[in-house]
């Protein structure tokens, strides 16, 4: 599956490896910073921002050279690591992982910029955590070896756990504990499943595993084990309750990354593992996934309506939006999966922006209670515009990226079952209800409280963070084809693997 361009890049420099571990070089620099407190704070912010921005540039370079007409992996990069056992260092991206790699590299500098003044202590460690997190996120999406994937995927927990547990709000310990417990539960089962797969197929290479035909009865168990891990990450109902708590306690930047990238790892996992490796089980369990997803859409939308905390409301909305994603993936139609992918990218941008929007006013009034606001539009007109735009993108207004994903998912859903389309589409109405309700209570109305009247307008740093997010959401709402075309070959691959169950070639080559 090696392509010219990928091979070409490979001979010059292992670009994905560089991309993945570049942030760690920043960490080294951060460790070397000496001086008094103020110097350390200033320098560590700058180093983190520069390193993550540079990482983003490299990711753009890769994106630029990515050939959207090719269905296989590109920029492949192999190394020796336990290779005699069929485990290898193997990196590569295809149309499914490429957008996530860029998204991770894009959101990290914005998250760092978002914490410019809001982090009050241990700035150096905070920035280290974010750079390590970036390495792990990019690694998760680039890894083409199951063991590597597992390491990256699980290790992501550690910096995020620390970010919430140390720089979080009042109940941060409870939240990070809950976060850890849930994900640990899933990961243990996934590890066991991976060992079984290794024992069976004799390799941990993801492309080879995808081509290996597991016995349908084994598939069922493997599917469930992976499902436990991915469902928690997405999160799907009823294993979603860690998310609202984690979001509420996490610092703004933590929420941006959590909602923007971490949740997508679950969806990515379904597309990378569950569907291609366990096609029979995926078909078998699709109705279960649909049921859970529809419950997620309706149940969490209603719960979002009952919230009085801004972040909690948006967190619950994330669960509902990710419900669309799981519906789309398991329709196993081209539109459904493309829609799910698009929805994940779009939600990555929109939810990051929404959590940042909460952070902007939180930095000023230090409360997330919706009732503490009202009439913010007077003091912060530009904020009202950005927030409005993102709110509309979140409810899937045509012309924003949110629409494309939701609509394609529903096109796929109708083909799977009209019931599914009907119940999922209720999210269109419910989503509008809670988002408009939130916006109304925060931004509209007459500002009566002295603190709200005296709110400082957005500064240029804050506008600078909103700007690229807004432009992308609009751009991908009007011209989504570029991204859809880029994903298409890889999506068709996945569908082939599911539908071609009967004719799958069981033979696999040796490791490397």
């Amino acid at each position: 599956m090696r392509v010219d361009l990928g091979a070409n890049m490979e001979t010059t420099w292992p670009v994905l490896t560089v991309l993945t571990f570049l942030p760690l070089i920043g960490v080294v620099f951060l460790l070397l910073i000496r001086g008094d407190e103020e110097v350390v704070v200033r320098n560590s912010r700058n180093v983190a921002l520069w390193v993550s921005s540079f990482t983003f540039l490299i990711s753009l370079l890769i994106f630029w050279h990515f050939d959207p007409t090719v269905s296989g992996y590109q920029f492949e990069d192999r190394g020796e690591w336990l290779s005699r056992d069929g485990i290898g260092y193997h990196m590569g991206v295809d149309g499914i992982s490429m957008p996530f790699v860029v998204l991770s590299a894009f959101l990290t500098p914005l998250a760092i910029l978002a914490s410019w003044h809001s982090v009050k202590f241990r700035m150096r460690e905070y920035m280290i955590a974010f750079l390590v997190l970036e390495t792990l996120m990019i690694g998760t999406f680039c890894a083409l070896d199951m063991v590597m994937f597992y390491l990256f995927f699980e290790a992501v927990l550690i910096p995020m756990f620390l970010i919430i547990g140390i720089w979080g709000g009042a109940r941060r310990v409870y939240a990070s504990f809950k976060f850890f417990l849930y994900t640990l539960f899933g990961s243990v089962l996934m590890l066991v499943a991976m060992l079984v797969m290794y024992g069976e197929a004799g390799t941990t290479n993801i492309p080879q595993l995808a081509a290996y035909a597991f016995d349908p009865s084994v598939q069922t168990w493997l599917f469930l084990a992976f499902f436990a891990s991915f469902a928690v990450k997405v999160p799907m109902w009823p294993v979603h309750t860690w998310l609202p708590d984690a979001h509420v306690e996490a610092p703004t930047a933590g929420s941006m990354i959590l909602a923007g990238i971490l949740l997508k790892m679950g969806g990515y996992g379904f597309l990378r593992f569950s569907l291609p490796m366990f096609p029979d089980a995926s078909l078998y369990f699709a109705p279960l996934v649909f049921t859970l997803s529809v419950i997620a859409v309706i149940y969490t939308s209603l719960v979002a309506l009952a919230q009085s905390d801004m972040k909690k409301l948006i967190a619950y909305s994330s669960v509902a939006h990710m419900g669309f994603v799981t519906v789309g993936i398991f329709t196993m139609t081209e539109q459904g999966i493309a829609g799910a992918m698009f929805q994940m990218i779009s939600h990555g941008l929109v939810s990051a922006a929404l959590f940042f929007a909460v952070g902007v006013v939180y930095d000023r009034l230090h409360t997330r209670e919706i009732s503490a606001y009202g009439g913010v539009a007077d003091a912060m007109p530009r904020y009202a515009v950005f927030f409005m735009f993102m709110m509309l993108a979140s409810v899937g207004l045509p012309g924003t990226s949110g629409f494309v994903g939701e609509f394609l998912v529903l096109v796929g859903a109708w083909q799977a079952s009209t019931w599914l389309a009907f119940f999922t589409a209720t999210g269109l109405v419910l989503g509008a209800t809670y988002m408009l309700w939130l916006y109304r209570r925060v931004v509209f109305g007459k500002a009566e409280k002295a603190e709200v009247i005296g709110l400082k307008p957005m500064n240029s740093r804050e506008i600078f963070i909103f700007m690229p997010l807004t432009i992308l959401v609009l751009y991908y709402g009007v011209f989504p084809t570029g991204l859809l075309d880029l994903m298409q070959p890889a999506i068709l691959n996945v569908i082939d693997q599911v539908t071609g169950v009967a004719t799958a070639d069981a033979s696999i080559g040796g490791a490397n």
Partner: protein
Amino acid sequence: MISAIVFLPLLGAIGAGIFSLTNNDKGGFIVSISAMVLSMLLGWYGFLFMAIPGQDVTVPLTTWISSGGFHVDWALRYDALTAVMVIVVTTVSTMVHIYSVGYMSHDNAKPRFMAYLSLFTFAMLMLVTADNLVQMFFGWEGVGVASYLLIGFWYHRESAHTAAMKAFVVNRVGDFGFALGIFGVFALTGSIQLDEIFAATPNLVGTNIEFLGMSLPALEVVGILLFIGAMGKSAQLGLHTWLPDAMEGPTPVSALIHAATMVTAGVFMVCRLSPMLEFAPFTLEFITIVGALTAIFAATIGFTQFDIKRVIAYSTCSQLGYMFFAAGVSAYPAAMFHLTTHAFFKALLFLGAGSVIHAMSDEQDMRNMGGIWKKIPVTYAMMWIGSLALAGVPFFAGYYSKDMILESAWAQHGATGQFAFYMGVLAAFLTAFYSWRLLIMTFHGKPRASEEVMSHIHESPMVMLFPLFVLAVGAIFSGSMLFDLFVGEQWKDFWRSSIMILPEHTAMENAHHVPKLVKFAPLIVGVLGIGLAYLFYLVMPGMPAKMARLFRPIHALFFNKWYVDELYDAIFVKPAVVLGRMFWTKGDMGTIDAYGPDGVTSLVGRFSAFCSRLQTGYVFHYAFAMLIGVVALITWYARGFGG
């Protein structure tokens, strides 16, 4: 040129939006109005020199969404149906833009207002030029958002942003149906492009699909679903509740969006889809019945209300009902005809009402008006013209279009057509009655406003009166001038392929040959209604109160809008909130958390101790220790496993 018509208002909106950052009122006015005027001139040019000679064009722009067989283009379609909508939208919009210069003169966010108006116009033009259902949906939701922004324009007012949200959410219920309809159409025909759908439709007659566990005729299912979208946007019975509340927006908004253009989008959609709906007889009957019921239902509420704008709003709702039942009996040209004339006279009425409200220091309650006709004679005359047209008095615009609708309903010779006819005649009586009730209560009798208000009453400035004159010309002449073209002798040559009517649906042809009584019925009831209004409100002013007492339960039902809002509140809104709270406290916290993570409470103590220790040391030490530990563990384990 078509692109210019559509995108000029967008440029105007962006321009005005930029000027709103610097609060540059003049800049905002100039850029938005000049873009609109240009767009309007091009629109008329297109109507006269392209649509009438029969020149249809489709301007492809670029691909929008493409995934497998699901392919959506950005493309502008221009045919007779679009051309009519374009002149209606651009003309009324331009007038409203100009009028707003005067009406909003005391507001401190003028450029923002103009930006929203232009944005609305852009979205509306995207809707009417849509070449496929998804682009129509784009315009559809776009006008919804613009409407939301404009209703909530005075966002300080609780009632304004409540109404704005209600409008958006109720419209979303309709859009829910619309969206499902689009998915259904795609599943059936493999396309969302209009021509391809229409080409595939005749083959689908007799095809059934599985919908929510039932096997139903495919075309009827998608037809009804799409029509639910139209019901939301056009405020038809059941999804009408947002329209009266939408009167919270500034009056020019009501004229543009909630009278002349956006609310007629549903009628346009039904006409646009005529090549499909013609093969869905049940859907057509459903449309007829919903339209007829809305016509009468809204009229019964209209004649009991006291807020001048709400009366006109219910009147709009009722007139939209006429348009729908016309479309339902396959008299699409009649529906489009009434849509056009209605746009002029209803916008005139709204802007006239705005002029009254402006004169009376923002008073909207007709009980606090009266005796002001001498002080604002021009406005008074304009309101007369609007009311004459609305009531269907001969030679005014509404006379031609309403008669045509009622005649074609009769001429359908079916049960639903008959039902629609009788409902329509009854509603025509009420229309005439409430129109004159409005005129008399507002302008005649003894002044009921305070001295203070009375002393300030002044005629509106020229910038507000000029648009009234233009619309008045439309309200007087549009009926007689467009009659032949739209529904008279030339209708087939004019609409051509933009509207498709099956040969066996003969309402249009037969409408011109109906009994005399049918022909004169609307006129007779119109005169009766006007006469009764004079009797009740001028000759015997005590009568209305007496009648209200006499028929107390019925009056209460009408006055309280048939309690629909209360009903919805009880069955949708309240349960949703209660359920949400219950799911949260009982579901998430009470069940999932209680038996899940919190159940493992014994861990908490140790864990928090661990956490507090973390905070005293160097974080990265621990992070790395954990990372390395995991790597080591896996490596060791994997080696052991592998051999």
